[in-house]
């Protein structure tokens, strides 16, 4: 397929340079500069980033559907399905527990939110006041129903009563469940005619993968405008007041990233440098797009293409790990909860820490069905059992979210890849 592309692309060397780490580094540098120094220019070039992100997301649902149906169907036919399901049942819960515990331990040791100065509290308070979170309520009349549902929304968002509605509304979880059921049933059909459908799904997947591959040439441009747009939204004042929390959260993400890189490196059996090179694309994409779904194709390509993990398993496990486990959100909620606990000077004890670890996993996984600010409201799932108030601190987390979202996405994608690497075998 490269030969045909050559016919339209005259200067192969220049094009190749666009994919080099240098191009990435330069464009991120320019993006960061524009975002911090020229917020006005950042809004001008923001549409490029939006278009780039839109093109990436365009490919996600077809790829998700074809990859999962295809791999699960073939897995059922090859009869080693049981082995992978068992591995997933082991790896996913254990890795969730591990990252949650790491985040809680880091936050408990570093103690963000402990002993804040009066000045810091004042800055945070002014921010809380600005956001106008006064509650206006009547003492009589009907009680307004709350939109947030927590666990029930997670369950509701699982089963699609109309798969086409789910596809057109981009409800990932429903599409995921449908693809799994469809894949399993397709695998159970023992007729030779299914081969044609598998081939169709395969070519569908390859076609979209080709688009994603082509889009990586535009990555420097997209990266620059996405980074600039994101950074221009971060309020520096708030950031400085919450600097200890931001620091601890980013340090936790870095630690988990390091551990996951080691896992992927050991499991892949290739050299460290080539592992890092293979991980470059999904890492940069996560930081630039803040959308774990948009990074899904890159993560699959990285694992099955560059690191030579079994494609079938990778195609199945990576989407599940990234869309269901939401490691990054789990880490973030664990850190955030401990920040709130220490901010309100609550003493938790060991049982309390256990609640934080489990609650963060639940809250993190509950974010799989939602997007935007609703993601952060899932923090209530952890704070409620601890009897801690959410509304005031939610404002603070929303304010720093433009900065934290990329790292959270990186945590979701990269840890998801590591979990996949633990489940999948290397291609021999």
């Amino acid at each position: 397929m490269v030969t045909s592309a050559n016919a339209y692309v005259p200067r192969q060397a220049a094009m190749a340079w666009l994919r080099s780490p240098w191009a990435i580094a330069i464009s991120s540098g320019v993006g960061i500069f524009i975002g911090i120094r020229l917020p006005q220019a950042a809004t001008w070039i923001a549409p490029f980033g939006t278009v780039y992100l839109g093109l990436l997301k365009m490919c996600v649902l077809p790829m998700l559907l074809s990859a999962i149906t295809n791999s699960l169907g073939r897995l059922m036919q090859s009869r080693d399905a049981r082995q992978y399901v068992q591995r997933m049942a082991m790896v996913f819960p254990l890795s969730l527990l591990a990252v949650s515990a790491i985040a809680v331990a880091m936050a408990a040791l570093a103690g963000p939110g402990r002993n804040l100065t009066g000045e810091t509290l004042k800055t945070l308070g002014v921010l809380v006041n600005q956001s106008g979170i006064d509650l206006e309520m009547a003492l009589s009349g009907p009680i307004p129903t709350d939109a947030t549902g927590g666990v029930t929304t997670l369950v509701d968002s699982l089963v699609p009563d109309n798969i086409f509605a789910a596809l057109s509304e981009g409800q990932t979880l429903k599409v995921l469940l449908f693809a799994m059921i469809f894949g399993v049933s397709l695998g159970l059909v023992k007729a030779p005619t299914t081969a044609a459908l598998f081939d169709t799904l395969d070519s569908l997947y390859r076609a979209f993968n080709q688009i994603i591959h082509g889009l990586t040439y535009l990555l420097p441009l997209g990266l620059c405008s996405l980074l600039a747009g994101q950074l221009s939204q971060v309020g520096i004042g708030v950031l400085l007041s919450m600097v200890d929390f931001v620091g601890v959260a980013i340090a936790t993400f870095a630690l988990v990233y390091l551990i996951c890189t080691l896992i992927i490196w050991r499991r892949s059996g290739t050299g460290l440098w080539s592992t890092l090179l293979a991980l470059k694309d999904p890492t940069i994409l996560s930081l630039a797009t803040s959308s774990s779904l948009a990074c899904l194709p890159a993560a699959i390509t990285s694992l099955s293409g560059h690191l030579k993990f079994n494609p079938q398993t990778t195609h199945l496990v990576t989407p599940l790990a990234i869309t269901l486990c939401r490691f990054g959100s789990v880490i973030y909620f664990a850190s955030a909860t401990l920040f709130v606990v220490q901010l309100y000077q609550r003493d938790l004890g060991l049982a309390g820490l256990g609640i934080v670890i489990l609650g963060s996993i639940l809250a993190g996984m509950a974010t799989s069905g939602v997007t935007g600010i609703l993601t952060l409201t899932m923090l209530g799932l952890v704070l409620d059992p601890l009897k801690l108030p959410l509304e005031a601190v939610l404002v603070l987390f929303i304010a720093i979210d433009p900065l934290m979202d990329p790292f959270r996405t990186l945590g979701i994608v990269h840890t998801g890849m590591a979990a996949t690497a633990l489940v999948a075998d290397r291609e021999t």
Partner: protein
Amino acid sequence: MVRKLAVTQRPEPLGNGVGVNATPVGWQASLRVGCLLLLVALLGFGPGAQADPSPSTPATPGAMAVSTASVQGRATSALGEAVESAMPPDMQRILARGKLTVAVLGQDNAPFFVEQEGQLTGLDIQLARSLAEQLGVTLEITRLATTFDQVVDMVYGQRADLAISKISRTLKRAQRVRFSRPYLRMRQGLLVNRLQLAEQVQGRSMVETIRDLRGKVGVIKGSSYVGFLKQKFPQATIVEYPAWEAIVDAVVQGDILAAYRDELEIKKVVRTQPDAALQLQTIALTDTQDSLAVVLPWSSTHLLAVVDQALETLTTPYTVDTVLDEYAHYWDLHSPQQP
């Protein structure tokens, strides 16, 4: 504490000077004196209290009617031209004096009345100024009262033409004085300790929890909010404090669950103490009322109409938030007392 501002406070009842002038009536005195007579008669209207040494017992309407009839008869028989000055007595009194006397509480209360660098400013003071300006008279502010009820008493006793002093309209007060239309419609508010509230939520929504509020709620001792609390939150335990600051401190410390007062005072707390905003949730109760109005003596019916009309033509109707925004600089200058 007694403070006098603008013009020195005159302890003698209003209109006394006119009465003294009127005593040497001679038949040779012509039109001018006739006018004065009419004036005295008109002034005798409301300030039946002036004749009476105790200010708390105003003249009965019956007596007033008699005096008016007799004096009017004299005046019209004397000279028909006097009709041109037949102003409503309550207005005439102010115009003759050339001065509007406004009662304001002696203690500063931002953003309504604050003394800044020797100057009295604030929302209520501005209202009083524009009223005096529109009447074409000077403004005298008297700050002898130390409680809100004393301010009302001053107006009732006619020791001031009216009061603009963050006075809430209550039925009890309305039995003795007249209220203008509200110049600031407020609602009742709760200042809640978030941590304590989170203990109570137990899976219910915030609205449900507040409606069924249990626990200690602080109110100012002897204020109308004691009654409101019993009525609106029967499950809550009433804790009465002598001062508002003590209530706020108790909420911040978590000694009590909530404080109950008008929404402006509630919102003022989180604005003046932003470092406590993380602990505190402000709640405005939309189906409650606490409206501020100008207080007038019951006899000043015409002045009431004038005041109402003046308030109606205010360029921008005040709301709690616009007031808080507009007067935000008061708190920047007056650093609030920290707990």
